[in-house]
Every structure is written in structure tokens, then in C-alpha cells.
């Protein structure tokens, strides 16, 4: 009977390369650890941890039920509003960017430039965008909407262009062969075909933006972030706890709903 021989990758060059990769990775991690100095836990750590847990046991319920502009419900609603508007703005702007980055629409060379532009947008931190927009429209929710709207293009346009690149080209070619002009091809062949994926990605980004919108308040761009950070800085733990609890519940519910819709779509 034949023996089964498993061929191992024994080429010396490959082995050396693999060892080199491992060395680089471990070197990097070692270097990383060397830079993080552990100053020891503050003496107050135990008591502040206790106070924090105490805050979670006795959350500030008066704040949670305060229905005025200064209350928690308003701040949460504002956060959701920022996330919805920001996602919508970016989904609309992402479509032209996605077309520009799709190889089967604009050709190889242009798509490379488009992809680079999209990556550049993605790497620009949203907090800095928020700062820039605060100087335009002043502090408040609109600055947050604009920051999310621009920052999300980076991810949405990338995902959109991947969807467009993997679509069935037959419909597009059929329309082109019938003499359809550019916009007819776009609106009757390309977009209808990828629209379930587009909507699904937009919902996914909405989930992410919900989390992002809750930190934008840090620089004054509206939402729940400002009261939360303020409560943590002043160590008003009961209030910080109630905000975190409500935030986690809200984000989880939105995740569930949007996840269900996404499952149905694709």
C-alpha cells in the first residue's frame, strides 16, 4: 500500500523568512511593553473603585427621569439623532466616492487613486474633524453630524466599492449595449443591484456611529459624551453609572434591531 506522505514546507529560505517574521513581531511587542511604564495603582484606586461600584448599585435615577434639556433622555435622543443624520449624510456622499474607487466602473488607474483618497479619509480622526467643524458651526450637535458624515465616508465608500466590484456585470453591459447613457446605467443597473448591500453596510456603520457619537461630546460636538466625561472627571459616580448603563442598553437595542434588519436584507 502506498504510504501517505504529507509534504512539509521545508525550503530553507521560507523557514528563515518565517523565523524573521516571528522575530519582528516579538521584537515589536517587546518594544511596546518596554515603553508602557506601570506606575503602580494609585493609593486612591481601591476607594475610587469602591465608589464606582457603589455608583452602579445606586445610580442617579433622578437624572435618568429628568425630561428637560439637561436630562439623560434628551442627551440620549440627541446622540441617536447625531448618529442617524451623520450616517445618512455619509451614505449619500459615499456613493460617488465608491464609484470612483470601483475598478469595474472607472478603470484600474482611476480606481487606485479613488481607493487612496478613501483610505485617507478613513485615517483622519473624527475628533479632529469634529474640532474643525466646531469652528465652522459652533459647538453642538451639527458639528458632530458633520464630523461623522465625513469620517464615515472612509469606511462606507470602501465597502460600497467592494460591493460594486463584486456585482454581476451582465445587467450593466445589457443596458450599455441598448444605448443607455451613464446615468441610466448607474440608476437602473448598478445601484439597484447593490442596494441591499449598500443599505446593510449603512446600517452597520450606523451601529458604529452610535458608539462614536457618544464620545464626540468630549470636544463639544453634542450628545451624551459631554455629560458622561464630566461626570467621570468630577467623580460623580452615580451619574456616570446611570449614563453608562443607559448607553449600553440603548446601543445593544440598536445593535439588535439593525442586526435583524441586516440579516433579512442580505
Amino acid at each position, binding site marked *: 500500500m502506498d504510504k501517505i506522505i504529507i509534504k512539509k514546507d521545508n525550503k530553507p529560505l521560507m523557514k528563515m523568512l518565517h523565523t524573521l517574521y516571528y522575530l519582528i513581531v516579538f521584537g515589536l511587542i517587546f518594544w*511596546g511593553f518596554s515603553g508602557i511604564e506601570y506606575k503602580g495603582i*494609585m493609593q486612591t484606586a481601591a476607594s475610587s473603585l469602591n465608589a464606582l461600584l457603589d455608583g452602579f448599585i445606586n445610580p442617579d435615577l433622578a437624572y435618568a427621569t429628568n425630561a428637560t434639556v439637561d436630562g439623560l433622555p434628551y442627551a440620549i435622543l440627541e446622540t441617536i439623532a447625531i448618529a*442617524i443624520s451623520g450616517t445618512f449624510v455619509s451614505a449619500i456622499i459615499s456613493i460617488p466616492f465608491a464609484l470612483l474607487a470601483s475598478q469595474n466602473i472607472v478603470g484600474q488607474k482611476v480606481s487606485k487613486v479613488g481607493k487612496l483618497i478613501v483610505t485617507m479619509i478613513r485615517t483622519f480622526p473624527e475628533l479632529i474633524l469634529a474640532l474643525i467643524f466646531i469652528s465652522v458651526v459652533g459647538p453642538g450637535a451639527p458639528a458632530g453630524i458633520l464630523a461623522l458624515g465625513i469620517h464615515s465616508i472612509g469606511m462606507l465608500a470602501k465597502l460600497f466599492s467592494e460591493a460594486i466590484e463584486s456585482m454581476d456585470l451582465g445587467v450593466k453591459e445589457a443596458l450599455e449595449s441598448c444605448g443607455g447613457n451613464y446615468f441610466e446605467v448607474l440608476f437602473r443597473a448598478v445601484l439597484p443591484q447593490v442596494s441591499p448591500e449598500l443599505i446593510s453596510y449603512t446600517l452597520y456603520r450606523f451601529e458604529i456611529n452610535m458608539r462614536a457619537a457618544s464620545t464626540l461630546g468630549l470636544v463639544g460636538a453634542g450628545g451624551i459624551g459631554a455629560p458622561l466625561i464630566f461626570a467621570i472627571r468630577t467623580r460623580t459616580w452615580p451619574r456616570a453609572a446611570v449614563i453608562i448603563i443607559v448607553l449600553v442598553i440603548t446601543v445593544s437595542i440598536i445593535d439588535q434591531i439593525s442586526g435583524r434588519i441586516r440579516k433579512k436584507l442580505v
Partner: protein
Amino acid sequence: MEKITVPKPKRLRRNLIILTVTFLILGSAWFAGFNIFEVIGNLYKGSRLLGRMFLPPDLSYLPKIIPPMLETIQMALVGTFVGAIVALPTAVLAANNFIKTKWLHVPLRFILNIFRTIPAMVLASLFVAIFGLGAFSGVVALAIFTFGLISKLTFESIEAIDYGQVEALMSLGANKMNVLRYAIMPQILPQYTSYTIYGFEVNIRAAAVLGWVGAGGIGQTMEHNLAWRNFDKVGTIIIFTFVIVLVIDLISAAIRKRLV
């Protein structure tokens, strides 16, 4: 001859959905006080700030921001490493096809979900309150956030593996550890590595801004300069951060493409 009846498409439901979504979008724009004309009318103010930042940026400041930038990279490296190491066994326990006891993976997933819902920035500010200012708090926050992210992605991959290999090993009498070692791990390791690198990408971006709450890295330097209104120095920091993040993104995307 039989008549062919074409059923009318259900327009009502579709229109209702479109109406609801439009209402949601317009309602939230109104609630947040978003006014597109105001934005366009005030764009010149933004260009003034951009001018003070980038025309020209204070490039002589560059040598001074290299140490905090290195610290940012170190924070992301350590945070990703610790988070990813803890995430692998957790993901195995949280997957419902390897260990079939419900009481283990249901609560585990619940905890993982909570970790993922709390933004890294909020975690960082909590840890700053406990551990004090500095990179250590940031690393703990990043590690916990990465742990939640990678565990979730990995347990989903474990649930989606090709079960034939597991059954083949079981039919030969392999125990659980052997199944894990020879059937599950080889299938998910490339994806797990790819998720880890993705986590690093996310963490670099997060670490660059964690300094806002005092958790170390380049964000702290930027916050100080903004507070002093040294906009030309802020411009340098933004450009430098942007270049570093972009380079790391491109490298890691190239590695991930080769992995999966």
C-alpha cells in the same frame, strides 16, 4: 387557456418603510438642529482655522512629538497583544459548536457584548480615574476593547468552520483537545491573525485620541497645544499622526490581504 395573473407587488409595505425612514432622518436632523445653509454660510470660518493650522504648520515642532507618537504605537501594540491573547480561549468557549453547554457561552457572549458597547474613550476615562493619568490606563482600555472585538469576530469564525474535519477526527476517536488542536485551530488561525492585525489598525487610531482623557500618547500633546491655541503645532501633530496611521493602515491591509 389559462390566464397568467401577475401578482401586484406589495407597494404599501415598501412605501411605509420609506416613509418611516425619511421621517427618522428628517426628524433627527431637525432634533439636532442641523441646518445645511448655516453650514455652507459659515464654511469660511473653518477655512480660517485650517489656515492657522496648516499654512504653514510649525515643522520645527516635529522632533518633539516623535516620543509621544512612539508611545502611541507602543500603547496600540501592547493593548492589541494582551487583548488578542485573552480573546482566543474566550472565543473557543463562546462558540456554540465546540462546547455545547449553554450556561457557559450565553453569559460569556453577554459580557463580550457589553465590552463592545462601551466606547474605548469611556473605558479609558474610567481607568484614568482608577489608575491615574498615563499610558497604562490607555493600554488597559485598549486591551479590554480589543478583547471584546476579536473574541466576537473569532467565535463567529469558529462557528462557521467546515465541520467535516471535526467529524473526521471524532470518528477516529480524537478527544476534545485534539479536535481543537488539529481541526479547529488550523482553520481559524489565519482569520484570527487577520482580526488581530485589524484590531491593531483600530487601536492605533483609538490610541491617537485617547490622550484627550489623559490616557497617554499623542492625543495628550495635541490637547495641551489646543488648550494653548498653538494651532500651527496642532497642524504638525495632525499631519504627523495622519501619515503614521496611513502607513500602518496600508501595511496592515497588505498583510491581511495575503493572509485570508
